[in-house]
Every structure is written in structure tokens, then in C-alpha cells.
């Protein structure tokens, strides 16, 4: 099932979407780097002259964690099963002598492998391009920390939206609202409200990270159980 899912990930609009998501940040980084090099434009934010290194920190958390990783998670997580159901090709997989959960697991792992293989190198590239060689030393440690966050983010968002994809009829719209509507609002609200989002735990320390990984595994298992209980009536 894993190979079949892997194959599906690498053709058609899915691969294009992933390539774009990985390539855009690198291009932006290059553009900004050129702008810095040519010295013709300096970006001054509230009076303080921004250096490339700090730029990289904000770029990572803002661009990757808040936008690219959740977007990929929503797109692939929800469409993984929902697409096959809509295209009615899921029937061929249901009539095979294997637990239906294996379909979810196979696809989820294929998603993890592909997205990690696309996004992490892209983040590394952005790091190399943005941070000049001289001051790279001290930053490596935080860079690795960022990579971990991205990896956990990919796993978490993926798991949450796989579960959404299996349970709801129109998961994509709901997913987008959750990521770009609910999460930013919740972050601003006081008290525990922020805890109801994935983003909150991403920013947290190691403990939150591990908690998130466990939660992801739980979500995937729940998704596997759901797909085995539910009946999918593919209307004519």
C-alpha cells in the first residue's frame, strides 16, 4: 500500500503543489539576498536595521510553520482519502484482503516521506542562502531546532487532517478555515484557548514536541479505526 501511495504522490498536480511549496521560499530567499547584495534596498522595520540572520529566524517561523507546513498538511491530509472517495477509486482498495486501516497508514507514511524530503532541504537551502558563511556558526544549533519543529509540524498537521479527511464530507474547506482562520485568532485569545491549536505546541519546547508526536500517532490510529467502521456510500 505504501508503494502504491508513494507512486500516487509523485505524479500529477500533487507533485506540482509540493514542488511549488518547496521552491517558493528558496526563490524569495534568493531575491532578498540579491537585494541585500546590491545594497539598493534595505528593509527597515520600526527603525531597527534588520540583518539577514534575524530575517532567517522570522522567515522560518512565519513562512514555514505558519503557512507552508499547515498548507501542505491540509491539502494532502484531507485529499488523501477524500480524493479517492470522490473519484470512486477507493472501491478497488476496499476489496483487497487487508485491513482498511492499512490504506490510511500507507498513504500517511507516503505523505510524510515525500513532504519531509521536499520541505527540509528547502529550509536548509534557505538557511544557507540567507545566512552569510561567517555568522553561520552559532546559528546552526537554532537551525536544527527549527528543522525539528518543521518535521513535527508536518507529522502533526498531516495526522490531524487525515482524521478530518476520513470523517467529514468536505474536509478541505474546514481545514483551511481551521489553519488560516482559527489558529491565528486562538493564538491571540487569552488562557487555554491557544492550547486548542497545533501551532501553539509547535512553538513550545521539547516536551510539547513529543506530546504533539504522540497526539499525531493517536490521530492516525483513530483515522484507521474510523475508516474501518464507516460505510462509504458512493452515490451514482
Amino acid at each position, binding site marked *: 500500500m505504501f508503494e502504491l501511495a508513494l*507512486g500516487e504522490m509523485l505524479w500529477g498536480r500533487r507533485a506540482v503543489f509540493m514542488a511549488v511549496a518547496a521552491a517558493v521560499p528558496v526563490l524569495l530567499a534568493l531575491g532578498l539576498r540579491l537585494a541585500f547584495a546590491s545594497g539598493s534596498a534595505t528593509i527597515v522595520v520600526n527603525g531597527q536595521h534588520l540583518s539577514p540572520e534575524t530575517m532567517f529566524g522570522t522567515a522560518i517561523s512565519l513562512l514555514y510553520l505558519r503557512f507552508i507546513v499547515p498548507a501542505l498538511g491540509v491539502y494532502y491530509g484531507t485529499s488523501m482519502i477524500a480524493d479517492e472517495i470522490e473519484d470512486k477509486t477507493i*472501491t478497488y482498495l*476496499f476489496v483487497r484482503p487487508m485491513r482498511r486501516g492499512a490504506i490510511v497508514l500507507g498513504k500517511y507514511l507516503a505523505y510524510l516521506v515525500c513532504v519531509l524530503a521536499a520541505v527540509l532541504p528547502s529550509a536548509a537551502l534557505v538557511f544557507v542562502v540567507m545566512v552569510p558563511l561567517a555568522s553561520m556558526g552559532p546559528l546552526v544549533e537554532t537551525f536544527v531546532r527549527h528543522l525539528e519543529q518543521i518535521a513535527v509540524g508536518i507529522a502533526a498537521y498531516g495526522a490531524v487532517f487525515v482524521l478530518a479527511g476520513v470523517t467529514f464530507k468536505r474536509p478541505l474547506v474546514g481545514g483551511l478555515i481551521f489553519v488560516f482562520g482559527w489558529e491565528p485568532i486562538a493564538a491571540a485569545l487569552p488562557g487555554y484557548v491557544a492550547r486548542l491549536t497545533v501551532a501553539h505546541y509547535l512553538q513550545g519546547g521539547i516536551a510539547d514536541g513529543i506530546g504533539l508526536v504522540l497526539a499525531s500517532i493517536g490521530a492516525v490510529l483513530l483515522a484507521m479505526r474510523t475508516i474501518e467502521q464507516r460505510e462509504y456510500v458512493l452515490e451514482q
Partner: protein
Amino acid sequence: MIVATEHLSKWYGEVSGLNDVTVTVPEGVTGLLGPNGAGKSTFMKLVTGQLRPSTGSVRIFGEPIWGNPAQYRRLGFCPEQDAFYTNMTGREWIEALAGLHGMDGDSSRAAATRALDAVDLLDAADRKIGGYSKGMRQRIKLAQAIAHDPALLILDEPLSGMDPLMRRRTIRLIKEWARAGKTVVVSSHILHEIEAMTSNILLMHNGRIVAEGNVHQIRALIDEHPHRVWIRAEDPQAVARLLLSGDEVSSVKFDEGAVIVETARPDAFYTRLTSLAASGEAGAIEEVTSPDDNLQAVFSYLVKE
């Protein structure tokens, strides 16, 4: 019995898909018939474990199918919808699905080649399914159903979109599978094609089983339509006179060069007719047939709208 259901019902909210069906499917080919919305696809989805019975049970090879994926080793299903991974080639798709049966690389490749050869798609095997014509897509669907050599085959409209030659070849293929010991359930709207495959049918209407078994036996049981026999003879009047002398005949009509007789007791009547024709008493009798002893007539008599 390969497939058996007891008081099987299925409800979608208030809509009743299947209503208290108790039926057994014998070996060989069985034609599943009924007008649109009769519950055929619901029945097939229950038998292939895609839907859970609301009440009652459905068993294949004696065991329930829902939530029991091991059964799919012996079951092949060809769905009606036109749904494919259009970017994969025919061979890749069949091999991938065969792989899901736990076959290793070589055996799934061999199974794929065998299945593709059976449906005569070997030459197009390495082209993308997206570029296949409707007839070829139908055949690749059949191939995925037989790749793992199942003992039970459920085919939903297997011939739709095929050209006449391919239809004939597929009908012969289905009969060969049956002869090779497989049990095949074929659902189709084209009655004369079912007739060409088998005379064992399962007629459904409004979610219930209206009739099951041999078409001709079923026809004989439809008493509000007495058995009608069309006889072409040299001297139809003579034949009619002689037949009227017996009490089996309830009415006689004449057609040019032929006489049409209605009888309520077909066995007695046919025995007498055969001996009459053998004796040549009423002149030569060239042809004998029963215009409404076929699937079309049975279907229209039993499925009154």
C-alpha cells in the same frame, strides 16, 4: 452455497435499499436483473462487504463478509463506475492491486500478465489508462477482478461500453470462468446478453427478490400469462384441429403459416405436440417456439410498473 443471505435489509435513512432478502446463489453464472433502483447495486455492495447490513446477514463461502477482509482472497469485484488512476499504466495498476493480495513481485507480475491476456489487453498494457477507450477501461476493470484468481466473481454491468465483438468475447470468457468452477454474478440491463450467458437469474424489484432460478421454470409458474406456443406448419388448420381435440389447449390464434396456441399445462401439451409432429398426422411441422418464454417476457410480466 457460495453466497447466502438471510432476511437481509439495508436502509439509507428512510430510503430502503434492500428489503428482507433471503436468497442463495448457486455455482455457475447468475444474472442479476431489475429496473433502475431495484436494489441491485445495494445487494452487490452488501455481498462485496462495502456496506454493512442493517438487518439480517450475508455470507460468502459460509462466513460473513463485512469487516472480514480475508474473504477478499476468494472474491473479485468489478464495479460499475468509471473510476481509474488515469496516470498509471494498465500493467502497473493490476500489479499494484495484485500486490495488495500479498503476492510478491514476480507472482503479481505473472498474475497481471495472465489477467491482461485473458481480457486481450496485452498490447495496450503499458499505455496510460487515461488514454484507454471506454471498452478498454471496461476490460481493465475485469482484469483487476480476476487477477488473483478468485472463486467468486461479482460483475456490475461488465459489458457496458464494449463493442459487439468484445461483448461476445467477454460473454464467452464469463462462461469459461463458470465452467472452470468459478461462481459468477453478473448484473446487466441488456437482457439478451444475460440470456446468452445463463438461464439462471435473480430478478429484483423495489428492493425485494421477485424471482430466482431458471428462467423457463419461472416462466412456467407465471399462471396469469398462460404458456403461449408458436407452431409453423404446412397446414396450420390441421394442426389446430388435432390439438383442440385434447383438453390442454385453452385458446388458438392463427398467424400467416403458423398457429399460436395457449395452454395452462405445458408438460402435457408439449408431449402431445412432439408425438403429433413425429407421427406426421397433421402434415410437416417445421418450427416450434414459445415467443414469451424468454427473459424479456418474464421481466416485463413480473416487473409491472
